Structures are given as structure tokens and as C-alpha cells.
């Protein structure tokens, strides 16, 4: 296999890895605020695509505006989901909350099927079907969009997390919720914010990918598993780790296609998930849970 081909696989890995990174960020942000895995995360990805298609094809909005509607309305659904389903469980019992997210996931995909039908829905490429050549490898313009939008979203999130009072409060919640409460942080608000961001980031991924793959009411769970595996791989609860986990998982998939067979591509996430849970449960960047004081 030549260098050009390898580069081609690397670019594909980077593209898929960006998507996994966004979905993984959603898992990690909610986990940091609640200690719970949100199994509805994949549905935010689905809704981002489906609602953008609805705004574009159904409402006839121009594509950029339709995409904005898709992402913002999904973020709003994330908030409503938190207020109606998560917040009602006052004791915050993790097992109960996880089951609520599983149920929520089913409700969201059934609703999408009911409202938008069972068919695959397309969206046009953001800026036409062109591609550029990178050292001989083909880089589609839509891929540049995907990687670029991910990079911008990650940069914004980094700034929010590390440079603002809200971000500091979110990190404090992740370290110790009771400690956060006694310094005056409204931890329930932080949970709502985490769902808003998780839904928005998932929706952004769904929006960016739909022009390449189309979307449907049932695309959530597959991407959900991959984003989950990526979040675990990096180290749950840490946003940087989620991004690293997403990119590494994307690359591993590419490597498996390059050297084994594309048949196994979707199994890689599960293999990674199990391997991490057995060998290094805290993830690549995670510290074993002893940094609390």
C-alpha cells in the first residue's frame, strides 16, 4: 500500500473521527454533570440531520439557515428532555436515569419516524461536490466542512470550559457535585446546560454528515455506540479526552479497513469499548479516580 493510499485512509479516519468526537463530547459533558451515560445521545445526532432536512426540504429555508434551525431546535429538545425526564427524578439515582435515557432514545426515534417517515432523507453538499488534492489523496470539500466545523466547535467548547465562569462551574460539578453546591453553583442548571451542549454538538455532527450519507430516523444508535466507545476510550468526563478518543477511534476504523476488511469496521468500536473496559477503564487520558480531595 502506497503513501497516498495511507493518507486517503487517514483523511477518512479524521472525518469519521471528527463525528465521533462531537458525539463523544455529548456523552462526556452529560456524564460530567450527572454521572450518567445518556443513551439518547445518538438521537440528538439523528435529530440534527432530520430537523435540518425538514427545515430545508419541508420549510424551504436556505441550507445555512436550515442547518441552524436543525442544530438549535435539537439543542432545545435536549433541554426539554432534561427538564421533563431527567430533572423529575429528584434523587438523581444513576440507574433510574440511565433507564430514562434509554426510554427517551426510543421515544425520540419513534417520534422522528412518525413525523418524517421511514425513508432516508438527503441534504445537499454545503458547497458543491468539489474536492481538493492533498499530496495525491482526494479530500472532498464536505469533509473539510466536517473537520472544520468540529474544530471550531471544539475550540469554542474549550474556551467555554476553561476561560469562563460557567465553564469553571461545570468543571467543579464534574469533580464533586456537593462541593459545587456549597460554593453556590446551581448544579441542576449545570445539568441542563450539559444537555443543551450535548444535544447541540450531536446535532452538529448529524447535520455535517447528512450530505454525504443521508439520514433516517434510525441512525442514532449506531453512531451513539461509536461516540460512547470514543468517550470511554479517551476517558469519560474529560472533553479533551473525548476528542482524542473520537479521533483515535476514527483512525482505528480506517486502519482496520486498510489492513483487514471493511466488513469489520463497525465492530471496531465494540472491540475498543471492551478492550478499554478490561485493560484501562479510566481511558487513555483518564487518571484513576483518586484526584478528588
Amino acid at each position, binding site marked *: 500500500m502506497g503513501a497516498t493510499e495511507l493518507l486517503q485512509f487517514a483523511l477518512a479516519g479524521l472525518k469519521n473521527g471528527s463525528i465521533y468526537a462531537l458525539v463523544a463530547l455529548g456523552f462526556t459533558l452529560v456524564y460530567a454533570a450527572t454521572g450518567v451515560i445518556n443513551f439518547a445521545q445518538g438521537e440528538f445526532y439523528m435529530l440534527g440531520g432530520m430537523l435540518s432536512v425538514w427545515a430545508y426540504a419541508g420549510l424551504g429555508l436556505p441550507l445555512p439557515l436550515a442547518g441552524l434551525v436543525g442544530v438549535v431546535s435539537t439543542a432545545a429538545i435536549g433541554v426539554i428532555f432534561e427538564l421533563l425526564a431527567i430533572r423529575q427524578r429528584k434523587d438523581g439515582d444513576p440507574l433510574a436515569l440511565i433507564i430514562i435515557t434509554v426510554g427517551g432514545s426510543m421515544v425520540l426515534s419513534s417520534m422522528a419516524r412518525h413525523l418524517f417517515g421511514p425513508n432516508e432523507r438527503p441534504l445537499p453538499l454545503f458547497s458543491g461536490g468539489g474536492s481538493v488534492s492533498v499530496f495525491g489523496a482526494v479530500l472532498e470539500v464536505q469533509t473539510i466542512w466536517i473537520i472544520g466545523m468540529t474544530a471550531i466547535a471544539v475550540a469554542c467548547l474549550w474556551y467555554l470550559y476553561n476561560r469562563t465562569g460557567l465553564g469553571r462551574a461545570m468543571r467543579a460539578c464534574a469533580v464533586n457535585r456537593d462541593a459545587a*453546591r*456549597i*460554593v*453556590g453553583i*446551581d448544579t441542576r442548571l449545570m445539568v441542563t446546560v450539559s444537555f443543551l451542549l450535548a444535544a447541540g454538538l450531536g446535532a452538529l455532527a448529524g447535520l455535517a454528515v447528512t450530505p454525504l450519507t443521508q439520514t433516517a430516523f434510525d441512525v442514532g444508535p449506531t453512531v451513539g455506540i461509536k461516540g460512547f466507545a470514543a468517550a470511554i476510550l479517551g476517558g469519560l468526563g474529560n472533553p479533551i479526552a473525548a476528542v482524542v478518543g473520537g479521533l483515535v477511534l476514527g483512525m482505528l476504523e480506517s486502519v482496520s479497513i486498510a489492513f483487514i476488511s471493511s466488513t469489520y469496521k463497525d465492530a471496531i468500536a465494540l472491540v475498543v469499548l471492551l478492550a478499554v473496559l478490561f485493560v484501562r477503564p479510566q481511558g487513555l487520558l483518564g487518571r484513576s479516580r483518586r484526584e478528588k480531595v
Partner: protein
Amino acid sequence: MSYEPRIVLSVEGVHAGYGHVSVVRGIDLRVAEGELVTLIGANGAGKSTLLKTIVGLVSPTAGTIHFLEQDITRMRPDRAVRAGLALVPEGRMLFGPMTVEENLELGAHARDRSDSAEDLKRVFDLFPVLQERRSQTAATLSGGEQQMLAVARALMARPRLLLLDEPSLGLAPKVIKEIFAALDRLKAEGLTILLVEQDARLALKHADRGYVMRTGSIALAGNAADLLADDDVRLIYLGAWHGEGESS
């Protein structure tokens, strides 16, 4: 003309616990403005639970809690901080992976932070070692420094009432002395303090008044000097009597 000090905290008939286990059983307690009041008692008596109930981490099953004439019974902790309470919790509960400075800024989370620089100066003046350590993570501090940081973080909220839960626990005598000197200074500056301690003698030496708690209720209350002089032995007896039965 007699001067009646204002009551800052008034706990009346409070019951609280965890699930079906009742731990605090009918506590009445008052703290007046400028006082340093201590709550002493053996391990497991329910002191920490009472503090957690006052700040809203635990919800009382009966009774009322008033803070500066405001009913704060069942108020959420983040609201209680805004009302003017600050807790230095048992075990400190610092944000370990975050820096000393970030911990302190989080202490000021509940209020307008435009003047937090001034408050930082104040707490660095009280605990100079924190200034040296300001960009280290809290997890890397020694136990004594962590306790100082916990006190400083609470002060960043500019509380009207400071609640402390066993600030001497596990610390060397020299560090304990330093922390209690800081409490004396805060009291002299007019801060109202409710101090939970297991070391009864130490606490009473610094306090104006004391309550002795035993299995969820107040067994004894009085002036700190009286409690100290009057009945060292009895205090210790109360502690020992209780410790025997409940320690686990």
C-alpha cells in the same frame, strides 16, 4: 439601655436523617451576631448532619431554620450561599484537579466577582501559604494547606455566618494552632461562626458558647468557659460514653 445582639441563626426543633434513619432528633440552637459558637460531641452524634441540614445538603423532616429573619428551611445550598451562609465541610471537599486560585474563585461563584481580587488579597493575608501555592492544584497541597484553602474558599463567598466542620481533623498541632488563630482573627473582625469539633477542649477555648450533642440531640449547653471549667470530666465522659456505643 441594654443591647440585644441580633440572632443570626436560629434552629428550632429540627429533625433530619438519611432515608428512614433519623440522625438529628429535635435540635434547638441559636447563634447571635459576632459569636463563635461550638457544637461538640462524639463521632456519630449527628453534628455533620446538622450542618448539612442547615446549608440544605440534607432536607429536615421537621422543624425550622431561620437565618437573619429569613426562613431557610429546605433552601437549596446554592441559594443558602447567596443568603450568606458558607460551609467548610467535613473532609474539605476541595476541587482537587483545579488550582488553588480556581478553588478560591469558585468560592466567590455565588456573588458578583468584580471585586474578587480584593477578597483574594484578604484570604492570602490570612493564609500566606495559599498565595505561594496559588497555581498548584488543590490535590497537591498538604492536609493543613488544604484545610486553609477550604476555609479561604468559604470566606470568598463573604459569608455572614461561617460553618466549620472539624477543621482540626487529622492535622498536626502546629497547623491546628495556625487555623484556630485565623478563626480568632475572623471572629475579632466580627464574623459569626458555628464550629463543629470533636476536640472539645480546643473548641471551647476559642468559643463564646457551646452545645454538646449526643445521639442526635443537645445534651448540654452553656458558656464556653463554664463548660470547660465546670465539667471537663463530664464532657469527656459524654464523649466516651457515646463513642463506645456508636463507633463503627
